């Protein structure tokens, strides 16, 4: 009559969510922005994503094998895929294939697995990969296509593939002919050469409040991000403080000297700020864990981004700002522990 049962620790509920589900939701949230990217800049980004995911999964599997970890289990968590997609979204659509290779080598092997793999990395892998290729191959990494709408020569699918895989451009086109500066680049350049922002603003790559095309991609990032917020995959702290600090400081700068400072909206809707605020600075692993820590983290990323954009040598500073705050995260976590109940 007596019946035996298996025992297990409390609580006795099925798992509410899984790491895989979390990562999957982030990937889903990126879809609108990817679609917008294709719409505005052509299909290059799709090839870049494919390449980067391929390399990332390859490196991930290799490292898991080398570290004697269950390969299937960890490949299934999709974190490497997410890293790859975010990386691909940061590089120019026509970047040669080996950019992805080297970026993923540093992202997955160096920044992730040398630290012990999922959950242990101190730096945001995608951003490590991006910054490595950015400083190593500035030429390839600054070859941005202008939006299809104003491109002098729109590239077809085969042309794009040939450019990525073979470095060949159709006909007698040169890189200089088909690539152009990004809006932030123009702002940075005009500041460097002592011109007024308004002069740069006359370039066709500027849209209504950000870069032409870029502003819409940024919007779609925000939509995806808000969906993630609603799904509680990310918290509001990082995006709000990051965008908030950029808006606030950008506004102050703009009001004091509109000639050499772009409007705060320009800041928010150009470059990597939106993807950074919702998808990159929110990386839980390399960010702060405590609530106050996340507030500081977000604000820090925003402020450093602005400082680099305004005074630094790079047109955009999101990636650097994220890495810099990654550095500070353990220290911040140490000193922003929440007050324990009753203490």
């Amino acid at each position, binding site marked *: 009559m007596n019946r035996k049962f298996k025992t297990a620790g409390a609580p006795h509920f099925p798992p509410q969510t899984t790491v895989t589900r979390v990562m999957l939701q982030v990937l889903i949230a990126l879809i609108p922005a990817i679609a917008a990217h294709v719409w505005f800049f052509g299909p290059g980004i799709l090839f870049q994503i494919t390449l980067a995911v391929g390399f990332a999964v390859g490196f991930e599997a290799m490292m898991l094998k080398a*570290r004697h970890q269950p390969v299937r289990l960890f490949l299934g968590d999709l974190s490497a895929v997410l890293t790859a997609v975010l990386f691909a979204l940061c590089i120019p659509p026509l970047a040669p294939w080996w950019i992805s290779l080297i970026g993923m080598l540093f992202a997955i092997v160096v920044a992730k697995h040398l630290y012990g793999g999922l959950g242990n990395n101190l730096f945001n892998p995608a951003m490590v990969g991006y910054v490595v290729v950015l400083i190593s191959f500035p030429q390839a990494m600054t070859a941005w296509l202008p939006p299809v709408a104003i491109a002098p020569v729109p590239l077809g699918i085969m042309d794009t593939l040939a450019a990525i895989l073979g470095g060949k451009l159709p006909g007698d086109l040169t890189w200089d002919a088909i690539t152009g500066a990004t809006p932030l680049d123009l702002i940075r350049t005009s500041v460097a050469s002592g011109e007024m922002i308004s002069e740069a603003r006359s370039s066709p790559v500027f849209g209504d409040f950000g870069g032409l095309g870029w502003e819409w991609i940024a919007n779609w990032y925000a939509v995806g991000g808000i969906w993630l917020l609603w799904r509680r995959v990310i918290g509001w702290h990082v995006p709000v403080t990051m965008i908030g600090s950029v808006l606030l400081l950008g506004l102050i700068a703009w009001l004091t000297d509109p000639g050499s400072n772009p409007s705060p909206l320009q800041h928010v809707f150009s470059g990597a700020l939106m993807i950074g605020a919702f998808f990159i600075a929110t990386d839980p692993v390399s960010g702060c864990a405590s609530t106050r820590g996340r507030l500081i983290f977000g604000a820090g990323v925003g402020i450093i981004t602005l400082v680099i954009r305004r005074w630094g040598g790079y047109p955009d500073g999101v990636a650097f700002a994220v890495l810099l705050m990654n550095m500070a995260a353990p220290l911040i976590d140490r000193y922003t522990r929440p007050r324990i109940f009753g203490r």
Partner: protein
Amino acid sequence: MTEYLLILVSTVLANNFVLVRFLGLCPFMGVSNKLEGAIGMSVATLFVLTLSSVTSYLLSAYLLKPLGLEYLSTLGFILVIATVVQLTEMAMRKTSPLLYRILGIFLPLITTNCAVLGVALLNVQEQHNLLQSAFYGFGAAAGFGGVLVMFSAMRERIAHADVPVHFAGAPIGLITAGLMALAFMGFTGLARL
């Protein structure tokens, strides 16, 4: 005013002594295992570096230069530094023996922290005046200390991570420093004069 601000920005960020200029790496790697030790070392260095930057400036400007003895700079500077360090060491041993224990062999090694002599030599090279030297020394130490403290907080986390065995310890520490330097590349061009 901006000039001094720029010196600070340059020494702390754009030309961070540890991550960009490669000065002061031995204590950077050596005393970064524990956060407390790192903070202590940073404070000690802040004190020693500022003081020795100023004193070595004085030595250079009022003794070596007038007498045409620039070739003795290295010797003179290192003497000044050694003395400042030694005094700090004795004072610390007296006032905070535990800190003294934690900093262990590294306090005397502040003498041989390249950053200290580096600051003195660079002061001469860049023709700083007294106040500039003070700011330069202070900024260098602040950059050193800030990075050291962050690094040690990171290392405390790495210490218990599942790092591949051959990389445990110094290698992953250096790779982390490398990634920090990578992040600091973002500050290039920041302190353009």
